[in-house]
């Protein structure tokens, strides 16, 4: 009798992360920005660096899309929010998908930590205490804010409250992105925003 251990949640195939039609440059801009920030949140909460992201790429069989540290940097640098005019600004759909899969894979790996952080946030909020009171959250928010300000073009102009709000929202999102339907949810969230900017009527969000 064989006893085989199989991960239930294999990564969805590219075919499932589909696009109704190719995104236009503005939509891709939105996608790039959001993806970069999701990864930023992961960095800040779990100390994930480019090494872990590349390892995830390898585990997911995405080396051809995200080959090395430089490639990864360029993909993230493509975000319109980032400082620096030089460098590659493109991100094609395949690359976006790869980043989605990598992000959700990492969110799943660190699911327990992310969940603990959200639980703490819930408790403190219920007690009307600021999130910084928990060191896990305080460190997360500080790291997020510092890194954001360091990397983003208008980073210094971002208010701490705004950054806190963004960081906490992303943290909660990560909890969902680490779940079984995470990649599909993240993909839908990216598309929803990008589709919202189309001149045509806003479609209902894909679930």
């Amino acid at each position: 009798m064989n006893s085989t251990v199989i991960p239930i949640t294999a990564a969805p195939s590219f075919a499932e992360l589909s696009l109704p039609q190719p995104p236009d440059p503005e939509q891709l801009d939105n996608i790039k920005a959001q993806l970069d920030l999701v990864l930023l949140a992961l960095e800040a909460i779990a100390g994930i660096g480019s090494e872990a992201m590349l390892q995830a790429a390898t585990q997911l069989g995405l080396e051809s899309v995200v080959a090395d540290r430089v490639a990864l940097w360029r993909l993230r640098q493509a975000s319109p929010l980032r400082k620096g005019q030089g460098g590659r600004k493109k991100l094609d759909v395949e690359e976006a998908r790869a980043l989605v899969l990598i992000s959700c894979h990492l969110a799943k790996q660190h699911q327990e930590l992310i969940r603990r952080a959200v639980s703490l946030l819930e408790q403190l909020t219920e007690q009307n205490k600021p999130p910084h009171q928990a060191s896990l959250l305080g460190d997360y928010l500080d790291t997020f804010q510092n890194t954001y300000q360091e990397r983003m073009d208008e980073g210094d102009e971002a208010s701490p409250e705004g950054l806190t709000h963004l960081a906490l929202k992303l943290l909660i999102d990560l909890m969902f992105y680490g779940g079984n339907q995470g990649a599909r949810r993240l993909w839908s969230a990216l598309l929803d925003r990008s589709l919202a900017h189309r001149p045509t009527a806003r479609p209902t969000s894909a679930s």
Partner: protein
Amino acid sequence: MMTQANVNSTILRKYTPPTCTLEISAKPSPLAKWIGNTALKNVRFQLSFDDPRVSEDQWVTLRGDRNQLEALADVVATYVQSFLNQSSDLLPQVAGVGTGLVATIEPLTTTLAAPTNPYGLALQPKGLLSHTLTLGALATEQSGAEIHLTSTQLADLATALDEYAADVTALPTLNQPAWMNSPAAWGRVVAGALVAVGLSASILNGLSRSNNNPQTASQPASSSDQRLALQPPQSSPSPSPLLSPPGTLPPSATINPGSPPPPIITTTPPTGTTGTLSGSSPSNPVGTSGNNPAATGQVIVSQNPPGTASSGSARVENVPNAAQVGKQPPPVKEVPVPSIVDQIGSSNISSDEAGAVSQPSAAAARKSAPTAPVLDTSQAEAVEKYFQSRWKPPEGLSEGLEYVLEVDPAGELKSVTPRNEAATQYRDRTGLVEGEPIAPAAADGKKSTIFLRLDPNGKVSAIKQQL
């Protein structure tokens, strides 16, 4: 974590993320033999919001049928997606308008349209971290018209519903290779697949004879993969709204049509179905034993009767959630069971016919509560009670202790096997003494295996392994 047991003709599924428990019961349809489908009927669910971090008197239990469950799943999925979509609104405008980050720390406004559905179910945000679930037709006197969920509770609910959806077959979403349509193909079981078990032999045997079921005509895969097919009340082949493409499953996964109703092995996953949250320390509210709080990846698969002509070899597989890193999968056992193909004739699979596979001690419970989820709990409950009064968590214990107990037919503890390191370490603090009577005599006169978990917060859980 999903556990499953087959108590004769009632198929049970149980999904147990940390803060809620979703139990599904259903019966195989007697028509399954003819429609060649793994059809279920009378699907009932029980959803308990049993967050260990809140007091038990605040726990809420909802019950309903399949349609209501799917409506709830729909509401939750839509709401979660809307919630996630909102994050993009927090970003600075990227088209050069430059409004800057949204500075307010105000809760997200109720701009999320409340989806309407026939049962009056709805979800609304009540801030970033709180969500109000309007229960509509599912409301009870105990629950009230609405309940409030935290984000973690919402995530757990979504997880349980996602897991259920993944187990329910509707339409195939992958093109089936040609060999899937040949009768011979049904005899093959492909390794490396999830298998949803709990289907009678009659259902599966029907696959090899007929795939003309209108429900399956457009869904050849439904009987070929291992998920449950729900027999819709209207007999229409419309897909379940729950389903998302099961792309994670290889198309070649099949159920052995000769498989009998599985005696399912239920195990307590290492991450614990209950009590994963200690609730005692604010700094560690989740997963005191390092558990994956959203672990839902346990699927128990039944085995296959050897030597059946058209059968391959289904495997008993214990599939831990991939995120349960570092945890050992629970022991997997394969119990050969004679085919009950010959017993298809009767529309009621009696306890005698399924005697080889059923839990006789559950027969009484089954008969008296056809819609209630039934597991053979009498011995397990007794064990729980026995230890509840004896278990005194040692100081400094930070994770649950898990043991496999062998209990002889007379109810005496025969052997104790620790399943985690802490269990080995604290073995002498547990009150487990071999030879002690810890349970009533087994109704079936057989020895039994019970999984016991002792939590640092004093909670005791025991589950009997279904043989």
